[in-house]
């Protein structure tokens, strides 16, 4: 006996929207970034659940690659944030970076 598919999908959907809400609600760019990680993890849960459901391994392989990409994205993203905050503005507030607009 295993966990019903719907439960996992529902949890994934909730986590996904939580992450999405974090992105659009928060001003702190670090927290925005963490919210994006939440969304990626929701995806992972989805994939693992479907993988179990279909009994094929592709979903889990997909998760593996999502993890790798997330790691690379984190490295680059945090580097961008560090560079930005050090060179430009001592602030983590996403709204304050608005030289470019219009």
């Amino acid at each position, binding site marked *: *006996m295993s966990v*019903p598919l719907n439960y996992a999908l529902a949890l994934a959907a909730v986590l996904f929207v*939580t992450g999405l809400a974090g992105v659009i609600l928060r001003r702190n760019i670090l927290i925005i970034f963490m919210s994006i990680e939440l969304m990626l993890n929701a995806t992972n849960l989805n994939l*693992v659940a479907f*993988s179990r459901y279909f*009994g094929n391994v592709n979903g889990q392989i997909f998760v593996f690659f999502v993890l790798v990409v997330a*790691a*690379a994205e984190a490295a680059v993203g945090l580097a961008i944030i*560090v560079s930005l*905050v050090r060179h430009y503005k001592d602030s983590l507030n996403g709204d304050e970076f608005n030289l470019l607009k219009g």
Partner: protein
Amino acid sequence: MNAPTAVFIVLAAVAVVSSLNVILRRNPVHSAIFLALTILCLAGEFVLLNAEFIAATEVIVYAGAIIVLFLFTMMLLDIRGGMRTRQFQNQFGLAAPIAVLLVALLGAAVGAINISGLPAAALSTLQAAQLGSVQNLGQELYSNFLLPFELASLVLTVGLIGAIGLAGHGAEDREEQVRIEEALEFDTKVRAKEGGHLEPEEELVPAGGHHA
């Protein structure tokens, strides 16, 4: 309700609460800790879904690498300044209903899932256990998924270049920056004038040292 389902629901509840904490906490360090907690819960769910290897990888990559990276970044930067200002966007009033509506829509879609309409495989316990094993995944990764695997290594290489290229240079940039910043500040002023034409004598006269 069977035991795995019960465990699943408990972990799910913890995951949801801690994920809410990720997005609602004032201090990003707390958010990061709660992110780690969420990820641990998810790893638990993965085990319940017969994905042991992925669960382990998730813990290692996220808790071990990504969140540590976040914490290091916070050490490098002054996060207290960010904590003193308002935490939420002005668009809260719009953003909150959007989030609620999206939950509703995704919930409706998930609720409407027609299990019988989907192609499914009934797995025996043994098959299920083998599904997420290291052996099984390794075999797939090094045969069918060799190409994405190689590409993934390139992705990581690019991540490395980015990290070094963007954040690896510190104070030595500072002097060079002064020159360019002045020139660009000047450019920004031109933009503010909305296309007003420059007189040539104004050309390239930097606005004297008002940068930090």
